[in-house]
């Protein structure tokens, strides 16, 4: 397919762009940050997302959604990134939806309507260490009664404490380090033995440390196949990764545009600083990096939407490249803003914080570059 957006996709972009800029700009983010909101996002905004159809972008039409793909989800995520709009879109409407699409009808009927209505929030409980290592999952699910008993700990569960349900990856067989033997479970927030401790992150998002102390779930809580959870997990993670990459294209582009505007207005030595070649070359280089990131993210999204065999390779490359480029953008942004870039009052620092969280989410650039090397045969 052509690497340009279709007319429909351009329309969606205009809608998302106008909406985020008017309803959820950086001032909205600041408001929720400064009030110390326990969720870190507005439930009202989440409902507005639903009214515009955003929450159902990836939900199949047969399940009441819009049945669109990663490109469309990414269009919304880019605008979220550009405005630092806080929402459960990436975790709930992208990652969780991709997992639930592989669940049975009863499970889909249980969760999709709430997502479509902008009422349900779902947490992704995968990480057990400080770095993303999904194959190392050690959390145990033992067979018990009609179902399973889950024991273990999870961390970096973004919006976990605000969630109605957690998607928990646990081991029903095999040992840590093996991809076989994993199973995904939908665990209700009120399940006995489930406890959470919320921790505010550098970017003001709230992530939970989750303790599963013999949490009993029924057999129908399994998403996909018992012991065959890796397939569901991979699908969910790749959607989350390419989604985080799209959001970083938005964060990086937003930071870059803000910085370029500053270079064109700030005067020192009786000149606008954008006249200095030392800054012009760095600006042009940054632009090239962001354009590259935008391209590989679009390529990865379209390969995922096609179900192409190389999609996984491109998703890894896209997460890595978007992470590196966005990180360059926020670093150059703070530096080129000079002293005011260090102030809380100025927005550029908020972009730096958001970049740091998104880079870590679902695996950082080094993790994904390593996967690219492995998939490329070395």
């Amino acid at each position, binding site marked *: 397919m052509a690497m*340009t957006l279709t007319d429909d996709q351009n329309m969606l972009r205009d809608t998302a762009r106008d909406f985020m800029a008017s309803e959820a700009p950086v001032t909205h983010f600041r408001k929720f940050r400064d009030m110390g909101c326990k969720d870190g996002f507005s439930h009202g905004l989440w409902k507005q997302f639903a009214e515009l159809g955003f929450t159902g972008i990836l939900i199949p039409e047969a399940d009441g959604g819009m049945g669109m793909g990663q490109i469309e989800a990414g269009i919304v995520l880019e605008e979220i990134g550009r405005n630092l709009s806080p929402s459960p879109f990436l975790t709930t409407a992208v990652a969780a939806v991709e997992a639930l699409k592989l669940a049975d009808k009863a499970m889909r009927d249980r969760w999709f309507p709430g997502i479509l209505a902008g009422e349900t929030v779902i947490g992704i409980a995968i990480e057990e260490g400080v770095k993303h290592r999904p194959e190392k999952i050690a959390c145990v699910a033992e067979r018990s009664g009609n179902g399973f008993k889950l024991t273990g700990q999870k961390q970096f569960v973004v919006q976990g404490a605000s969630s109605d349900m957690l998607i928990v990856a646990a081991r029903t067989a095999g040992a840590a380090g093996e991809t076989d033997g994993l199973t995904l479970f939908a665990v209700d927030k009120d399940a006995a033995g489930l406890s959470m401790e919320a921790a505010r992150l550098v970017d003001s998002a709230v992530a939970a440390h989750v303790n599963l102390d013999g949490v009993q779930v029924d057999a129908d809580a399994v998403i996909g196949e018992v012991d065959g959870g890796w397939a569901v997990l991979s699908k969910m993670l790749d959607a989350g990764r390419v989604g985080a990459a799209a959001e970083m294209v938005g964060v990086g582009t937003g930071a870059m545009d803000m910085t370029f505007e500053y270079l064109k207005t700030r005067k020192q030595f009786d000149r606008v600083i*954008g*006249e200095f070649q030392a800054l012009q*070359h760095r600006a*042009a280089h940054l*632009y090239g990096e962001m354009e590259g*990131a935008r391209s590989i993210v679009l390529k990865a999204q379209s390969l995922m939407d096609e179900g192409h065999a190389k999609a996984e390779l491109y998703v890894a*490359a896209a997460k890595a490249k978007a992470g590196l480029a966005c990180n360059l953008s926020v670093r150059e942004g703070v530096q080129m803003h000079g002293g005011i870039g260090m102030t809380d009052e100025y927005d550029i620092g908020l972009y730096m914080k958001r970049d740091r969280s998104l880079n870590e989410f679902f695996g950082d650039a080094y993790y*994904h*570059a390593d996967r690219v090397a492995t998939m490329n045969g070395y």
Partner: protein
Amino acid sequence: MSDLETFRAEARTWLEENCPAEMRIPAKGDEDVCWGGRNFVFQSEAQKVWLERCVAKGYTVPDWPKAYGGAGLSPQETKILRQEMAKLGCRSPLNSFGIWMLGPALLKFGTEEQKVHYMGQIARGEIRWCQGYSEPGSGSDLVSMQTFGEDKGDHWVVNGQKIWTSYADKADWIFCLVRTDKANKYHGISFLLFDMETPGVSTKPIKLISGNSPFCETFFDNVVVPKDQVVGEINRGWDVAKYLLGHEREMISGMGGDGGVTSIGAAMKATLAEEPVLRAQMALFDVDNLTFRAHGERFMDEWKTGKAHPAYSNLMKYVGTELNKKRNELVMSIGGSQALEWESERTNGGSKARNWLRTKANSIEGGTSEVMLNVVSKRILEMPGG
């Protein structure tokens, strides 16, 4: 079947029937490349036959109009033909600066007579061209060039010197920027075509750090050039040159990495397994290489639909050439001491080392990386200042 699918099937059949088996194994080096021209010596009967058949079919320049020696293919058909050639491993029947550079300029600025005459010669591989742009005192600041053509009524008398003229010693004709009005910097340059055998033209190859001499110094001593050998208007040659430079940047921008998405890491697996930091560098390079391929694809799709910024090829040239240099640094590191060998048979005459050194020119020729960044900054990002 759609028209394009029909075309694909026909192209494949034609290639299978007409491309000799010897022309389907990869060219080993420059000596296997057909450059055409008056003095070209075919390396094999197959090379000659393959050229002749492509000439007859218009496939040396498939996207040129039939009247000028092409096959009149649409961009989509041309892409399909190239894909089918790649699948069968067909060599390019004819490489030429005439095809890549002069032809597109003639198509845009030439008279009908010039198009039929010169483009026809290029398509048939009869004339090998070289490009006379840079001068010893005019590199990045090309427009300061001094080579002067004195007006003598129906002709000019050209005096001066060019440098970095690719294969000038092997070329039949030159397309050359000549100052025809000393009073006007930008609007005082004309784009002239003339025979390298004209009295007063001489060349001297320049030995490069790679040990090879693909470039020459070219001298003009009272060279007579008739006035009908100007392309475009007299004194407006800078417009032609700028157009051609844009074209050249597009072409060079395609050189990043290895021309494809295939990683060079797999073949070096054993070495990389023992060198974790080098493996990490290779991995990050692969991320950049995949990125550049996707970037190029997106750029071409936007270019075709008129959505790309007119100065965007400058960005692609910068990114692509820097990437290719990085790639060759990695090839040398992975190759270790063996890659240092300069003449041995086991290294095919030091090909890695020579290629590595050659790529250092990528970010100098056709506009330096620094000039590309200037252009991107001013024209695309609209940064202030002169």
